[in-house]
Every structure is written in structure tokens, then in C-alpha cells.
């Protein structure tokens, strides 16, 4: 390390490099721009003028996963869509986070049937779950702020919390 010349007459502050990186990350989240079902309508509403997601630095919806660092899974994930969602996630550069928006993305919601993945956490690691069907824009904003808190705390992004196993239920059973 070289020496840093400091002028004692000027203001300065000390912090950790990590902390300042987290601070920067949390205030410029770039969500991937895609929606899977009805929840996406609320996501659009969140980004539009009335709720104005840009107040929280997360309005730059990117049409390419290569430029995004948060994935808002807005809607139910069909079995056929699941590999696509996973590919999008894999294409996003690190660090990256996932918000499961709505009952469907969180747990399958009302669609407890053959066609829908029972929660997107079967496919990608989820950081924040936003309940609701659909969650109102304020709820999504709340979820994003929770994610910002998580980022500020320096939690390992995208960590699988525990093992993720496919649910196996006896046919017809609940």
C-alpha cells in the first residue's frame, strides 16, 4: 500500500470498501424486464409515474438479463417456462438477486396443479418473497426495500437457504 496524502483541513470519512460497494449496489438495482402473468401488470404500475420506482433507484428495467442484477419473477411459472427462467438467471452477471412477486411465484398460489411450478424457489434462489395476488405496487416497493436492506447488510446474494427439494405428494393427496 502506498501512502495516502491527507490534508487535515479537508473533511473526510472512513468506511469499508465492501460497505460502500453494497451502498452503491442497493441504490441502483436494475431489474430484468420480463413478466410472466397478471402480477407483471402491477410491476409495470410500480415502475410507472404514480408509484415511481425510480425514487428507490430500481426503475431501470433492462430488456437483457446481461444488464440486470435483480430478477422480479412476476407471475406463475409454467413447467415449460421454468428452464427459461433458469437460463435468464444464469445469464445475469453476479451479484444478482431474485424477488418472487406474488403468491404464484412464491408457492404456486391458486394453481396447485400439473402445469405450474410450485414456487420459483425450485428453480432459482429467492431473496425476497412478496405476498399478494397480485401484490400492490406498494407491496412490491416494500419488497424491493427489504432487498435493499438485505444488500446493505451484506448478505450473501442469491444464497440457497437450505436444500431445495422437489415436492413429492401422493397423487390426489394434499
Amino acid at each position, binding site marked *: 500500500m502506498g501512502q495516502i496524502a491527507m490534508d487535515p483541513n479537508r473533511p473526510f470519512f472512513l468506511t469499508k470498501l465492501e460497505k460502500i460497494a453494497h451502498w452503491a449496489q442497493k441504490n441502483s438495482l436494475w431489474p430484468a424486464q420480463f413478466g410472466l402473468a397478471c402480477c407483471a401488470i402491477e410491476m409495470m404500475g410500480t415502475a410507472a409515474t404514480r408509484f415511481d420506482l425510480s425514487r428507490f433507484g430500481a426503475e431501470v428495467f433492462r430488456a437483457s438479463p446481461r444488464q440486470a442484477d435483480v430478477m422480479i419473477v412476476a407471475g406463475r411459472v409454467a413447467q415449460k417456462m421454468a428452464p427459461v427462467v433458469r437460463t435468464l438467471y*444464469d445469464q445475469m452477471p453476479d451479484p444478482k438477486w431474485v424477488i418472487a412477486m406474488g403468491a404464484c411465484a412464491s408457492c404456486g398460489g391458486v394453481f396447485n396443479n400439473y402445469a405450474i411450478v410450485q414456487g420459483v424457489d425450485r428453480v432459482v434462489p429467492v431473496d425476497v418473497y412478496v405476498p399478494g395476488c397480485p401484490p400492490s405496487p406498494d407491496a412490491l416497493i416494500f419488497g424491493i426495500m427489504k432487498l435493499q436492506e438485505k444488500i446493505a447488510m451484506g448478505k450473501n446474494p442469491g444464497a440457497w437457504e437450505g436444500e431445495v427439494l422437489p415436492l413429492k405428494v401422493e397423487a390426489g393427496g394434499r
Partner: protein
Amino acid sequence: MIDQAGQEAAIAAAVAAWPEGVRREEGIDMPVLIVQAPLIRPVCEELKRRGFDMLTDLTAVDWLPMGKVPRFEVVYHLFSTRGMWRVRLKAPVGEEDPVIDSLVPVWPGANWPEREVWDLFGIRFEGHPNLTRIMMPDDWEGFPLRKDYPLEGTERPAPIVRE
């Protein structure tokens, strides 16, 4: 204006041409013809020649809970754009070998609905140019709209997790 007489004439002709294989019934909204499955293509060709130029719907019913034999019914809705007539055809299809002739040679628009019926009911359409799954993933097992298909608990392991 609906030309009732023309509709009746076209339907009567189809019944008259195959007295064994085509039976007429009254539906609540439109006339119904019960057609033996092997006759479906000639009957449709005849109806098309007589004015039913459009296939508006093609689907199937699984009568398992009712215990009906044969188990499946393929349902066709035909429409005449000139006379504004409608007719519904029902073709019973057995459980052991559910197969019926494809109508793609008659109406190309039958292509996707037939794939859908194959995908969800497992009824094969003989002569279809590309009878593959249309909604479920290609490697899916079973036919989800059959009544004995479990409603839930069929979830497969997480699709792909690439290293």
C-alpha cells in the same frame, strides 16, 4: 338472416348419406350429429361441400366419471359463413386405441386444435402432419386433461440446474 332451410338440407344430406354411421340429435344451441369415428373425414368433407366452410372449434371430452363407453368424444363445431348455420359433430373414440382421422386435409386450421387434443387427452389424429405436444413440455408424460390424471402432486424435479 339465418337460412334455416339450407342448414336443415345440408345436415339431412349428411345423415342420409351414411344412415348407419350418422345420427342426428337436438342440442340446446345447435343441431348435433353423432358420427362414427371412421366416418369423420367423409362426413366433414360432405358438410363442407354443402356450405359448412369453417371449423370453429375442435376439442374432446373424457366421460370417465360418467362411465360412458366409449370413453372419449371428439367434438367439432362447424359454421357456415354464408348461411350463418352451425352444427356440432361428436365422434366417440374408444379408450384402448384412441385414434381418429385428422381433419387437417379438410380444414388446415384443425392443425393446432388437434395437437392440443393429442397433448391433453392423448387422442391420436391419423394423417396429422406434425402430431407433437403443443402446450406441455415435449418430454411430458401422461395426458393432463384425462379425468384419471392426478390434479396435483405430479410435479417433476426442478427442471434444470446447470453447474
